[in-house]
């Protein structure tokens, strides 16, 4: 009954929006709102719940500080935490940058020569499967500069996804397109530049997303192992130091900074991914329906 009543005027109205369409539009609008509203609500509820648990049970702040206390610590210790954040961030970005340069460079070398790939790939795998915490002490014995040591550790962790993804990408060019390049007598360099590198882009960017997070983890873990303090120490050392002093609010504040940094790095990598691929790659193209 309701259907017949609705369909009659709809036939007269010029813009053809049927019930399905209307439902879909409503659903899309709800999803758009939910995409930001839900996380905000969940985070707010978590904070409220956290605060309530701490208050209701009268938990002392050196065991579990409430969210207010953490925010306070973040504000009061900002100068210490911020300079520590900058150190960690420096190691992270430098490690990521080095991982990109060497990872992509080595992947290109691999694609140019099967012999080099067969010779060196085992070492890349060995570096990848050996836990960084077990190599780090050795690195700090042999490398004098603490910054260089941290950098090497973070780099080892971030390097492999870039290398392996880019290698896979460079080898995954459409074989008919490869034939076409051969028919036109393309040089090795032209094939690399106009065929393999564009084909490898989505793979490389997926590796970059993983490597971004890993370089932060590498930087933090390496600092735990290095364990030395002083002026140029990063967030991980501040966490260790705060735990020795039972300054739990500061531990939470530093942890919060690391988490936020990780999220921002991931968001930045996703943005780069989107900007680079939005014109042509299925993963980044927005679709109707």
């Amino acid at each position, binding site marked *: 009954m309701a259907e017949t009543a609705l369909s009659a005027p709809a036939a007269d109205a010029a813009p053809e929006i049927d019930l399905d369409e209307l439902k879909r539009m409503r659903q899309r609008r709800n999803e758009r709102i939910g995409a930001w509203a839900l996380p905000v609500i969940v985070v707010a509820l978590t904070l409220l719940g956290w605060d309530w648990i701490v208050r209701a049970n009268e938990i002392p702040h050196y065991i579990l500080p409430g969210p207010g206390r953490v925010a306070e610590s973040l504000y009061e210790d900002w100068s210490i935490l911020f300079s520590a954040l900058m150190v960690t961030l420096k190691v992270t970005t430098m490690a990521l940058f080095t991982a990109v340069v060497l990872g992509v460079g080595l992947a290109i070398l691999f694609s140019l020569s099967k012999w080099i790939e067969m010779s060196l790939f085992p070492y890349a795998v060995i570096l990848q499967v050996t836990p960084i915490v077990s190599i780090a002490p050795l690195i700090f014995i042999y490398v004098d500069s603490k910054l260089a040591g941290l950098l090497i550790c973070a780099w080892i962790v971030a390097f492999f996804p870039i290398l392996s993804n880019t290698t896979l990408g460079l080898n995954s060019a459409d074989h008919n397109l490869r034939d*076409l390049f051969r*028919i036109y007598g393309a040089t090795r360099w032209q094939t690399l530049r*106009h065929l393999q590198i564009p084909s490898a882009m989505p793979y490389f960017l997926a590796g970059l997303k993983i490597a971004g997070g890993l370089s932060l983890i590498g930087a933090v873990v390496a600092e735990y192992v290095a364990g030395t303090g002083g002026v140029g120490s990063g967030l991980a050392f501040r966490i260790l130091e705060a735990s020795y002093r039972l300054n739990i609010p500061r531990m939470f504040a530093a942890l919060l900074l690391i988490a936020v940094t990780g999220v921002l790095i991931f968001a930045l990598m996703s943005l780069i991914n989107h900007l680079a691929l939005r014109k042509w790659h*299925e993963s980044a193209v927005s679709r109707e329906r």
Partner: protein
Amino acid sequence: MEGIVPEEHQTGGSAGHADPLLRVANVSKVFGGQVTALRGMSLDLGEGDFVSLLGPSGCGKSTALRLIAGLTHPTSGQIRWRAGTEPDLGVVFQEPTLAPWSTVFGNVWLPLRLRGISKAAAKDQVEEVIASVGLAGFEGAYPRELSGGMKMRVSIARAMVTRPKLLLMDEPFAALDEITRFKLNNDVLALQQRLGCTVIFVTHSVFESVFLSSRIVVMAARPGRVVHDMPNDAPYPRDEGFRTSHDYVERCRAVSAALRDAMEHGAGHEEH
């Protein structure tokens, strides 16, 4: 109708080319020392010929095309271009095989780009050939924004942009719907007539081969080889009128008979 009578394949291909553009002389291709993909193929290609290679799957059509393209080398026999002629060809694959990261312009520019011709220098040539396949105005579109037929047109434009003497087409329209295929057949034929290039067209469609080609080479499988080499002398230009004519139907009937013969009794015709 006389020209369409199946004749026994003879070494050296159909008559008449004193100085062929390309000569395929008794070429065989064996893979891995045991699988004979092609046995004793001979074919002379004259300038302006439109030759269809017609046969069931596994008859070595695509192998023949790859050999001519220089992507693989014959186990025995020779492929020779006319003395003083550089190998000069364009290829259209079964799939459009476009670079998805590149626009229509970028894809068509590619062969020229690989020869070191800059975007500015190639612009007129590229735009002209894009217009000639009916895609003017789509230069900036990406492949994913195009229909299957349009992608194939880009692929054809890319093959034609260097004005090759020889165009190789490997079942280019097999994956398209019939309406699109008819339209593309008309357009390819018009383009070939205008530019006067030589075409080798691999197909498994009798109707397509009769509509397009000036010569139909019927092949048989296991091992892949040529069994009939039939001239198809219906006058060009051929249009929709030809496609519905009695003459066309008769020619299709004759070629079908030759193809059936190749598939059923192919082994008996072996010469080499």
